[in-house]
Every structure is written in structure tokens, then in C-alpha cells.
């Protein structure tokens, strides 16, 4: 088997005396669709903050495409090909939608932008995600689904190899959930590996080719959706004994 795209080895993260992550190891391979689930407070967002480089880990190693990125700052990891969305949307509020996308397009490998035309590339992404009509709207007037789509569009603008979607569907209606799912599936078809953190089980089960379950800062299960559903520890973590 080829070496994994993302290799998380024995990662530990503490906040003071609280162990947010204890000896977490996982591998993600090229082209996979991985669902990351777990009860509230199980460390999902902490884990992706560690992978994205927002948090420094206290133990273990993280490799991406064979490169050790453990000590690399977040912006360098983005340039290597890891992009993420935020659970609570964090748009650049003083800018228009188009300008929001221009930030990653300008700062992540700008020479590779097709034809060097940043604005055109940003517009193309907005068209793909169905927001072209709002290109020149300032972010403050957007609805929740538009904000969530903007998060995805901005991550796409960083042209990632690995996209981490942190609860990209939270708070959306089921029609809107399907819309976001369709976008993620399309991105995956184009070769982008995706890690999805989600509480909406219907979406996770449908989307993921593999599911990893976190509980109290440890991985308790890793397998296909069917295997996970049959896993007794998962049931215990979610429902108690």
C-alpha cells in the first residue's frame, strides 16, 4: 500500500491538566472520504486544529504526503495542501465574497492560478458553488447557508489536496444539507481527499467511505459505516450503557 496522504501518529494535546487528545493515531489515504464523529467534547475540532496547525501538539508526529509538518505553522500547511472550514464561520467581514476568495488565491501558490487572473479564478469558484450572483455582496448580509458555502468556497480557493470540513452542515435544513453534500461529493470526485466532521448521522453515513470515532480524546473505532453501526463501543459512547 502507498504511504498515506495524512499520517497522524500518537498525537497528544493537553489544555492545562485536561487531556483533550490522548495518543490519537489515524491515516487518511488519497481520495478517501473520511467521516470523523464523536460526542460533544470528544476532541474532534481539537484534532483538526492540530492537523491544520492552529494548535501545537504536545506529543506525537503529523506527516502530510510524507513530509513531517508537526512544527510547521498553519499557513505553510495550507500551502502544502491542507485546507479547512470553520465550525463557526469565520469570514473576512469587511470584504465582499469575491475578495474573501482572493485571500487564499493570492497567498497559496498564486503562480498556479489559471492565467494568473485571481478575480476570474475566484468568480469561477463562486459559480461552481452557486453564489456567483452574490460575488460583490459584503459578508455581513449573508444567510447561514451562504456563510457555510463561503467557508467551503474559500477552502476550495486554497486548492487543497485534503479538505477538512468542520460541521459544514450544522444548522442547515435537510435540503441545504443535500446541497452541501453534493458539493463535497463533487470535490471528492475531482480527487480531493475529504475529512468531514459532522453530527448529522444521515449525512455522515451517506458520505463517508470510512468513519473514525473519537470519544474522550481517543479513537475508539475506525471502519466502514456498516462496521461502525455494529460497533458496541460507539453505541456506548453515544448512548451510555
Amino acid at each position, binding site marked *: 500500500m502507498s504511504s498515506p496522504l495524512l499520517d497522524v501518529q500518537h498525537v497528544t494535546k493537553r489544555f492545562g491538566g485536561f487531556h483533550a487528545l490522548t495518543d490519537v493515531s489515524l491515516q487518511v489515504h488519497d481520495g478517501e472520504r473520511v467521516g470523523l464523529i464523536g460526542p460533544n467534547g470528544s476532541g474532534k475540532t481539537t484534532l483538526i486544529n492540530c492537523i491544520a496547525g492552529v494548535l501545537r501538539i504536545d506529543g506525537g508526529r503529523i506527516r502530510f504526503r510524507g513530509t513531517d509538518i508537526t512544527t510547521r*505553522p498553519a499557513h505553510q500547511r495550507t500551502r502544502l495542501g491542507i485546507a479547512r472550514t*470553520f465550525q463557526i464561520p469565520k469570514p*473576512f467581514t*469587511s*470584504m465582499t465574497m469575491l475578495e474573501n476568495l482572493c*485571500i487564499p488565491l*493570492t*497567498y497559496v501558490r498564486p503562480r498556479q492560478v489559471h492565467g494568473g487572473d485571481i478575480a476570474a479564478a475566484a468568480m469561477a469558484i463562486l459559480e461552481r458553488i452557486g453564489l456567483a450572483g452574490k460575488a460583490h455582496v459584503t459578508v455581513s448580509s449573508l444567510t447561514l447557508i451562504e456563510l457555510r458555502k463561503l467557508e467551503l468556497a*474559500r477552502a476550495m480557493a486554497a486548492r487543497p489536496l485534503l479538505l477538512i470540513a468542520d460541521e459544514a452542515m450544522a444548522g442547515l435544513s435537510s435540503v441545504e444539507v443535500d446541497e452541501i453534500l453534493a458539493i463535497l461529493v463533487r470535490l471528492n470526485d475531482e480527487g480531493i481527499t475529504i475529512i468531514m466532521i459532522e453530527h448529522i448521522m444521515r449525512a455522515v453515513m451517506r458520505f463517508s467511505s470510512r468513519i473514525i470515532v473519537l470519544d474522550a480524546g481517543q479513537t475508539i473505532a475506525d471502519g466502514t459505516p456498516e462496521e461502525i453501526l455494529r460497533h458496541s463501543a460507539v453505541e456506548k459512547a453515544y448512548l451510555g450503557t
Partner: protein
Amino acid sequence: MRRTLPVVIALSIVGGGMLLTGVVENRYFYFATYVILQYIVLSTAWNILGGYTGYVNFGTPAFFALGAYTSTFLMLFCEAPLLVSIPAGGLISGLLGLGIGYLTLRLKGVFFSIATLALTVVLQTLIINWEFVGGAKGISIIRPVAIPFFRNYVQFLFVVMLGLAVGSLAIARWIEHSWIGLGLAAIRDNEEAAECMGVPTLRLKLFAAVVSGGLMGMAGAPFPYHISLIEPLSAFNLDYAVNSLAMPMIGGTTTWVGPLVGAVLLGTAQQVATVTISSELNLLIVGVVLVGFVILAPDGIVGLLQRMLKRK
């Protein structure tokens, strides 16, 4: 042509200033205009870190005074001419800027602002206890008697400060329209998201802090020559902190035009008030105007005009 036009404009402004010294003789005119020009530099410099990047710096007096004391030191130590002291003051204050740039790693928002205020107090205490540059009682500076091309030293200082003002506006304009300005705006809006979108936030913040501090230091370097006496209380005057913050707020913080508009309006009002009413009224004017703008036009005059144009 589009690239050379701003350069032509900048050079013609400085050239116009030089020609002016041949026409208008009144020394007070140059003295007062110098103060306004100095505020254009200070508020433009402040805006690079405070307006573009969103880190509110209360330490303007520290950077300004460091520039002023650098030139005082060089003058006492080796009789360095002003045109050497200005880049030296910029360099030293730029280094201090690098220091507060690293502070942004741990301190954000109001905590950063308080730290910069503390920095002013610490530096002032150091200077007060440094006898070589005059200590607490200060030291008088004897201006060079003759200066080539100029009728007197006040006119020379005026042209120097005019050059610094045009230069700092040019730098601010360049930053604003470059990829650096885009990244700084992203940091101001959301630093974590900016970092995750590939913006090297630390490097850009350090850049902004160094440029901002360096320009303030350059504005401070001619100060001892301007008032021919330097002492800690006037060099570390809190007015600099208040004004360099209030002027961009009044003009508008997101463009290079804002600090210029704010400094010209507020600076002129202060100079007029000093002559006609009293010198103590300065800060009161600033306070009242600032409160008015924060309530009525939070985006400053430039923001107000932009909104009016959009509505039409």
C-alpha cells in the same frame, strides 16, 4: 504612465514646498505647518498597524520620542546632520516596532494596546534617568546657523517634513494596494482564518509594526531641531498617542486618504485654536470631535463619502 504619475505628483508637492519657501516669509507659518505635516506622518504610520492590521497602538509617543532621542544622541555624540539622524531614528524605532510585532503573538485587542501604553512609560523612565541626553531637565539644541538652499532652518525643517509626509503616504498607498494590504485586511478581519488561508500572519504583522514604528521614529528625528529643546515630557507627550489615533479614526482607517484628511482637519483646527483661544483647548477639541465621529460616522469621513456616493 500610471506608475510614474504618483511619483511625479509626489515630487511636485515637495518641489512646490521648496518654491513656497522663496515666496512666503512668515516663520510661524512654517512652524505651524510643520506640526500638521508631522501629524500626517504619525497618523499615516499609526494607521498601517492600527487601521490596516487592526492592532491599536497607544505607544506613538514611545516611537516618536525614540526617534527624537536617537537624533539628539547622534548630535551630541558625533554632530551627525539631520539627514543622517532621520534614517537612524527610523531604524531604531523600527527595531522597537519589531519588538511590539512579536508582542502580537501573545497579546491581542485591548491587552496589546495596554502593553504599548506601558512601553511608553518604561521608555520615558529610561530617558529621564539618562543624563547624557539631558535626563529629566532636558537639553537645548543649537540649530546649525546656515543651511544651503534655504533662507532659514525652519523652512528647511518644513521641507524635510513635507518630504516625510509625502513619503509615508506613498508607502501607505503602496501597502494598501499590494498583496500585503490584502493580507493585513484579512488579519484585521479574522486572524485565525487568515492564517488558515495561507496568509503568513506573523511575518505580515512584523512588517506592519516595523514600517509603522520606523515612520514614527523618522517623524520624531527632526523634533529636537524643531523646538530647539528636548525634554522627556514634551517628547513623550500623550498628545501624540491620542492624535495619531484620533486622526485616522476621523478621516477613515481603511484607506491611505483617511489619516491625511483627519490630520489636516484636526491638525489645522488645533493650530488655529492654539493661537486664537488657548493651547490647552487642543485635546478638548480632539475629544469632542472623536466622540462625535464614533457615534455619527464610525467609518470616518472617507467612509461617509463612500456611502453617500454609493447611495446615488
